[in-house]
């Protein structure tokens, strides 16, 4: 981790919620029979603990003495499973990487053209594209599966379970990514609440939960308009702007039934008049989904005009004389209270809504439809909270307050607290998109963070989270390389720490090294892998990896060990085993280190084999050549001198004519001399040859020398 400031201003980097939740208890599952004498606890991968349980020494022999169990800490996000989080992490890699590369391209372009603003006009398109890509990962859009036969009594359609994460991302998207057009923000919030009000149902009463409850009752109701809940639920739905639900419910009114239409004519007229007024409500929005009610206006003057007209119609209906002719009391009262809501009666709105966001939205809809700007929305939100205080705040509520209050730090802290490091890292891209202030705040290098910016800090934290899982560590590099200060070093540490046992994983690490041109790390990983394989008896794999790493030092070291076994095993039968290894090493002496000797030794053995098979002088000459080149080669270990010469006794004593000339024989004699000197040293290893071997070699060489001199 980067230098976590200690004692500098006492500021904690990551806000820790002060409310202590009491100790969490995790049961240990082990199968030890005898009592536990000792526990050892260490961190394992991710947020799991590795607990080693040692049993007290028992008299029973075959009882296990201990066990290691892993305990996973924290339940994580109950809304989103671990596997789902991983899917989100995988999916966000490409949008993030694309945005980073576009950023880099834009900033390098602006450096060239000396332009003050690095981002062009299409920058907002890139941001929005990024935001939409991430949004799509978090769950599909509202399910479009409309039932074939529309059930008149189903007022609320149950779609896919929404998640708070998606709700939070959509909030960020609407406030930061969509090219700021605050004119439409109130209506965007109305749509947002319609999608996600159910999320608050768990902790707070909501209009959505009221509707769901009433839906259950509705099936058993004969005369809906007699039920006070019918009117209450409709008022609530109207207050938060769910017009189509309200109109659909109004049409369930008993006066619509054919048998009653004649004697409840006035009543029905009033119900229908309200329904028409609701469906004609003017709305300030960009576009309207098909089937949704209300009349859209894109320009403010048109909207204001339509609004005044609509309000006038409601007032007219409210003061109409028809109400006195309406015999049904509940209908009369219910409809008039709905008119009050549309007229923006603050008390009606307050009693119709459940929590402050609903109240806030009802105010935006009916009291202050011309609200523009975040500061006025923020003061309205403060007022709503005063009217409807909460015992405990939902994580989305904190986020909304932070956004409306234009407080980047709060938004960031709420993202982290409520949704974790993934959210923070990806949300920062949106926060910095439109605001110079936020960009300065998040990108400024801070001495109390060890010289890194808040943006980098959060990326590093997220990369650490990714690194701690065996499946997600491979995407951590994408985030690490976007960190200017500490990213590269941490990437090197991450790669160096990966396990090398399995070839596939090893090659995946090497591939990442190749992408980021970390050649020294590649070499290190290969060396570690080589030694690991070598130690486990896989000599071929060990030699291969050390060769790849061009590690001559270790190759020479293992060569010494190999020679020990060569002396014993390189008999004719086991030659096939060695063949493969020698082939693997190739003839390139640079990458083979001290193992080059093996290659020559194999050639020599092969030619010697030919001599024994065929006995032709040509073959013998070849064998002599390779013998001489072996003996001349400095990489040939001394302890092989005698065995080599002893093996070639037949060549030295060749019947027809001497095969070695004078100078060649002299070389061999000098080598024999060196050997006699070396034998005096204490660390000399005697080869396993018959005792008279040295004498017979000497004799053969002397004879050969004599014959060679005569011949010349």
């Amino acid at each position, binding site marked *: 981790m980067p230098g976590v400031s200690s004692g500098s201003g006492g500021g904690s980097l990551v806000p820790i919620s002060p409310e202590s939740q009491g100790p969490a208890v995790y049961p240990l599952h082990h199968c030890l029979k005898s009592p536990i004498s000792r526990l050892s606890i260490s961190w394992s991968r991710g947020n799991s603990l590795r607990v080693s349980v040692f049993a007290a020494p028992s008299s029973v022999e075959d009882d296990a003495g201990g066990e290691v169990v892993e305990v996973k800490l924290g339940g994580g996000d109950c809304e989103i499973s671990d596997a789902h989080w991983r899917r989100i992490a995988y999916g966000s890699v490409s949008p993030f990487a694309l945005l980073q590369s576009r950023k880099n391209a834009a900033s390098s372009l602006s450096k060239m053209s000396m332009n003050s603003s690095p981002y062009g006009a299409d920058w907002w398109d890139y941001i929005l594209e990024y935001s939409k890509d991430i949004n799509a990962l978090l769950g599909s859009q509202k399910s479009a599966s409309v039932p074939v036969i529309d059930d008149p009594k189903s007022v609320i359609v149950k779609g896919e379970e929404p998640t708070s994460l998606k709700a939070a991302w959509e909030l960020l998207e609407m406030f930061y990514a969509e090219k700021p057009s605050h004119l439409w923000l109130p209506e965007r919030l109305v749509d947002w609440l319609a999608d996600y009000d159910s999320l608050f149902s768990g902790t707070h009463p909501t209009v959505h939960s009221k509707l769901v409850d009433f839906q259950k009752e509705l099936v058993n109701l004969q005369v809906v308009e007699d039920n006070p809940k019918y009117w209450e639920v409709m008022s609530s739905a109207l207050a938060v702007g769910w017009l189509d639900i309200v109109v659909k419910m109004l049409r369930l009114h008993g006066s619509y039934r054919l048998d009653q239409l004649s004697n409840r004519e006035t009543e029905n007229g009033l119900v229908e008049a309200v329904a028409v007024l609701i469906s004609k409500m003017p709305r300030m929005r960009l576009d309207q989904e098909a089937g949704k009610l209300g009349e859209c206006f894109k320009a403010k003057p048109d909207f204001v005009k339509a609004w005044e007209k609509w309000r006038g119609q409601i007032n007219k209906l409210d003061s109409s004389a028809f109400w006195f002719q309406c015999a049904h009391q509940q209908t009369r009262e219910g409809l008039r209270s709905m008119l009050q809501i549309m007229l923006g009666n603050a008390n009606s709105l307050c009693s119709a809504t459940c929590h402050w966001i609903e109240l806030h939205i009802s105010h935006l809809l009916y009291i202050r439809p011309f609200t523009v700007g975040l500061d006025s929305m923020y003061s309205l939100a403060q007022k709503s909270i005063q009217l409807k205080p909460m015992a405990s705040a939902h994580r989305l509520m904190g986020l909304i307050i932070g956004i409306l209050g234009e407080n980047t730090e709060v938004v960031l802290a709420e993202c982290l607290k409520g949704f974790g490091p993934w959210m923070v890292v990806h949300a920062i891209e949106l926060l910095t998109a439109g605001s110079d202030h936020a960009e300065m705040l998040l990108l400024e290098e801070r001495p109390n963070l060890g010289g890194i910016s808040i943006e980098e800090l959060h990326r590093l934290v997220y990369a650490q989270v990714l690194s701690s899982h065996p499946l997600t560590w491979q995407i951590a590099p994408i985030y690490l390389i976007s960190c200017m200060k500490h990213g590269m070093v941490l990437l090197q540490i991450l790669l160096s720490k990966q396990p090398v046992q399995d070839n596939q994983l090893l090659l995946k690490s090497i591939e990442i090294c*190749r992408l980021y041109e970390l050649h020294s790390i590649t070499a290190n990983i290969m060396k570690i892998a080589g030694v690991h394989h070598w130690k486990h008896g896989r000599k071929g*794999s060990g030699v291969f990896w050390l060769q790849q790493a061009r590690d001559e030092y270790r190759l020479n070291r293992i060569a010494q060990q190999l020679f020990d076994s060569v002396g014993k095993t390189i008999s004719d039968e086991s030659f096939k085993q060695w063949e*493969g290894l020698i082939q693997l090493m190739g003839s390139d002496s640079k990458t083979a280190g001290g193992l080059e000797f093996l290659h020559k030794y194999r050639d020599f053995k092969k030619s010697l084999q030919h001599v024994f098979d065929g006995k032709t002088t040509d073959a013998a000459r070849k064998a002599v050549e390779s013998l001489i080149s072996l003996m001349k080669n400095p990489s040939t270990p001394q302890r092989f001198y005698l065995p080599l010469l002893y093996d070639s006794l037949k060549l030295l004593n060749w019947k027809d004519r001497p095969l070695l000339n004078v100078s060649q024989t002299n070389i061999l004699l000098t080598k024999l001399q060196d050997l006699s000197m070396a034998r005096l040293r204490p660390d000399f290893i005697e080869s396993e040859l018959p005792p008279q071997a040295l004498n017979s070699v000497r004799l053969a060489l002397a004879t050969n020398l004599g014959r060679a001199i005569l011949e010349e």
Partner: protein
Amino acid sequence: MAQNPSLVHRIPQSKYIDAIRWLSPVSALDRFAAVAYYDTDTNSPSIEIICVDPNPEGSSPTLTPQSSWTPPSRISSLKTAHSTHQPLLAAATFSGSIHILASDLINGGTMESEATVSELGFHSGPVSAVDLREGGTECVSVGEDGRVNLVSFVGDSSKLSYRRIFDANGLVGYTAVKWASPSEFATGGYGFGLQWWDQRKPGGPVSQFKGNWCQGKTSGIVHSIDIHPSRKHTCLAGGSSGTVFAWDLRAQQQPIVLSGAGTDEAPISLLSESEVWEVQYDRYTRSSNTSNISSTRILPIMICSEDGILAVIEQGEEPLELLAEPCAINSFDIDQQNPSDVICSLEWESIAILTRS
């Protein structure tokens, strides 16, 4: 992006996929595949038979698990035999055992372990590759420990007998194996080395191929071998640095490089520079008939790679990229009966199903 119109569906799983294979269909309607999963949350491996419902209404196909079997450790290699009366699976594990599984696709796709070899000394360390002979009476297994084992199973014996064909004592490690004929098979390993074995000539490989052609450049490992039933003299191999080459036994030491940085000549197009995890002959012919291709020409092949490429390579032609994923494609399988369909396992815990048109 893909250069030709083909339908791709990516189906996220919540587990890592170690290997994936099509199973030969028993009826025209049902398609089955065998998947070796690894669940990192619970540290548990499994082999599952899944039913692939293509879902003709255009949305993503659905995968329905039929049955599951728990191996002792993660699967390092999974192969199927097609010409048996019921599909046979050979699964090799990281703990050095081999399991023969039979699945009954007609009766709900149940899976039973027919036989197991897991004795000490069968392999030391993981079995790196296994191949099942067509007809399904024998399989050959290799490991980095340098052992080459022949496992025969006849009928109902639950304990398999195995025969050690060769033991290189770790001096050579093998990473890939493929049957060529009832008595011959090929292995591959480090340094782009290939070995040809004949059971009738015991005591070691009959013929060896050493990739000296990559001299000076970094060498690599062979990850996968394929041999076409009609071209038994040619051994196709794929491995490190995007290398795909063929070894014609008749032209001993000269490889035919199909892709990769193997030779100094530039013309060979470089598809990928990373590991080629699997190679298979592509039986899905687009234009030319296979029988018309002269016997010296290499038949079309398909490869998948660490940098997310799934492509078809034809000798002397521009390779055709079928998929370019942001993550690695670790294995794939071409359906024997419907060669237009390819199933792939992606690094990011998902399965991709590709239908070529």
